[in-house]
């Protein structure tokens, strides 16, 4: 039988170390909503989402209450909207209409984000894909909860450089259209390489076409728990450190597995995957950067950071995989800047640069995340950053992503405030040498060879 020490350990994690289930994300296929009339598509989408997800929030709250574990977010992911709206949408404004419908449905069911205003264009863009991409700035400026993601490359297909070029422009335009709101639109826009079909985390969640009609995916978290655990290993060797992270990850993930199974049972919707990510929040102690410091770095960005992050990521997976029946999504440590107080401190201390962050993304999920850059950054420069990050993903067969926020009217050293889980961020310098000719070439970078790994 359970004893008092085990009960106290669990409750300490929840009360003092910010253990929570970060999100229950309900994936909903909208393939059966397709129609050739845009108003009909919108009606179908609204009806399907508000029917399938009607009990999601209440069920989440019920589980929170019964187990005493906070479930921070309840969210929805949908089939990439470019596919759903492909037959009906003839202009970007048609896609904006779909985005607004999604927003309305999200508000109706009470979720705090809905992901899947997406297009998968890793090899080429259909007309609908391009219309959706061009509608993104207005769609994100006129909605509150809709998140957008574009997959511009994969290990199997190479990189679609036309899409990369276009996305640089779109990111900038999204910033411009939401500049009165701290360019918040860009916080809801991710550019992926090797995007997973079952990611529960925003802003990159969408419900892939390989998925069932509806599915429950759960994202666990708990950087604070890992940090507290490794504080007790100070001075110990790597074996002790790694074992500690692994065991802690196991415990954290078990809670996610329980919540996922319960949510699945109560909603009558199959369980998909657990995403084993360490997702920080701006709350003190809920920081991946603090884990890196606990491993022995003065600040993230110091030499050794990439190695520390690599071992952290790997141990989290090793512990988590055994704790859950199905693992998927992004599964790794997130290193967003604005959402992690320790990362913000490292940037302010001059320890962490964009280039070091890029190196760190080679060994963890997901990529350059929630990084504020000067508003006068050129579109081609943003495309260049996207191309670099996508290339890392393509060659290393992993998911990478870029979510940068060009803050219109602000310069390096100034601060932008997003609020809530999105936090705040110091604006970081971007290498200003030109990559115009590279980006403007157009076409595709061919898929990489899978031998001669050097």
């Amino acid at each position: 039988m359970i004893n008092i020490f085990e009960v106290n350990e669990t409750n300490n994690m929840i009360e003092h170390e910010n253990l929570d289930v970060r999100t229950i994300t309900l994936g909903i296929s909208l393939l059966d909503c397709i129609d050739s009339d845009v108003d009909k598509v919108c009606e179908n989408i609204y009806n399907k989402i508000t029917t399938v997800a009607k009990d999601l929030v209440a069920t989440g709250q019920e589980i929170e209450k019964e187990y005493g574990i906070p479930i921070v977010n309840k969210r929805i992911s949908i089939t990439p909207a470019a596919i759903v709206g492909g037959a009906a949408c003839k202009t970007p404004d048609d896609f904006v209409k779909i985005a607004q419908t999604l927003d309305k449905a999200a508000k109706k069911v009470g979720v705090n984000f809905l992901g899947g205003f997406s297009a998968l264009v890793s090899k080429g863009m259909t007309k609908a894909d391009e219309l959706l991409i061009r509608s993104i700035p207005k769609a994100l400026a006129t909605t509150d909860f809709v998140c957008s993601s574009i997959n511009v490359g994969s290990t199997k297909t190479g990189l679609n450089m036309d899409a990369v070029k276009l996305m640089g422009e779109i990111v900038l335009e999204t910033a411009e259209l939401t500049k009165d709101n701290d360019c918040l639109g860009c916080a809801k826009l991710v550019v992926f390489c090797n995007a997973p079909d079952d990611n529960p985390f925003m802003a990159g969640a969408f419900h892939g076409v390989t998925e069932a009609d509806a599915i429950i995916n759960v994202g666990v978290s708990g950087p604070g728990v890992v940090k507290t655990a490794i504080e007790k290993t100070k001075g110990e060797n790597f074996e002790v450190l790694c074992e500690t992270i692994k065991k802690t990850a196991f415990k954290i993930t078990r809670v996610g597995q329980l919540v996922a199974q319960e949510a699945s049972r109560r909603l009558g919707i199959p369980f998909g995957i657990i995403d084993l990510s360490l997702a920080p929040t701006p709350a003190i102690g809920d920081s991946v950067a603090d884990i890196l410091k606990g491993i022995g770095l003065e600040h993230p960005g110091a030499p050794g950071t990439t190695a520390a992050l690599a071992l952290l990521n790997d141990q989290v997976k090793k512990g988590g995989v055994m704790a859950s029946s199905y693992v998927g999504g992004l599964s790794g440590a997130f290193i967003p800047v604005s959402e992690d107080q320790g990362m913000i401190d490292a940037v302010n201390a001059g320890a962490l640069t964009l280039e070091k962050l890029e190196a760190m993304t080679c060994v963890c999920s997901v990529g350059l995340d929630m990084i504020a850059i000067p508003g006068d950054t050129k579109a081609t420069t943003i495309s260049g950053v996207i191309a670099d990050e996508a290339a890392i993903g393509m060659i290393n067969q992993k998911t990478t992503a870029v979510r940068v926020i060009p803050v219109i009217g602000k310069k390096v050293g100034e601060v932008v405030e997003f609020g809530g889980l999105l936090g705040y961020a110091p604006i970081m310098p971007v290498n200003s040498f030109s990559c115009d000719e590279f980006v403007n070439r157009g076409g595709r970078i061919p898929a990489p060879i899978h031998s001669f790994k050097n």
Partner: protein
Amino acid sequence: MKKTIITVVGKDTVGIIAKVCTYLADNKINILDISQTIVQDYFNMMMIVDAGKCDKKFGEMADEIEKIGEDIGVQIKVQQEDIFNSMHRI
């Protein structure tokens, strides 16, 4: 049978167990096990109970027990046992 875990943490004072147990008895909740320790002057108790015969919904029962805690100045949590089994038992 699903078990429920009740934990009480707070400054030690007269009648904590009595008040909680009275509520449990009034609501047909059977106590299966009690353990308690004092950690750094703090009263620390865990009860394993069977709430199968309780007429109230879990949320309502939990709120009422937590309210008792507030009244006597201790923190009481009521949770389904599964979360602890999941984390500590393979």
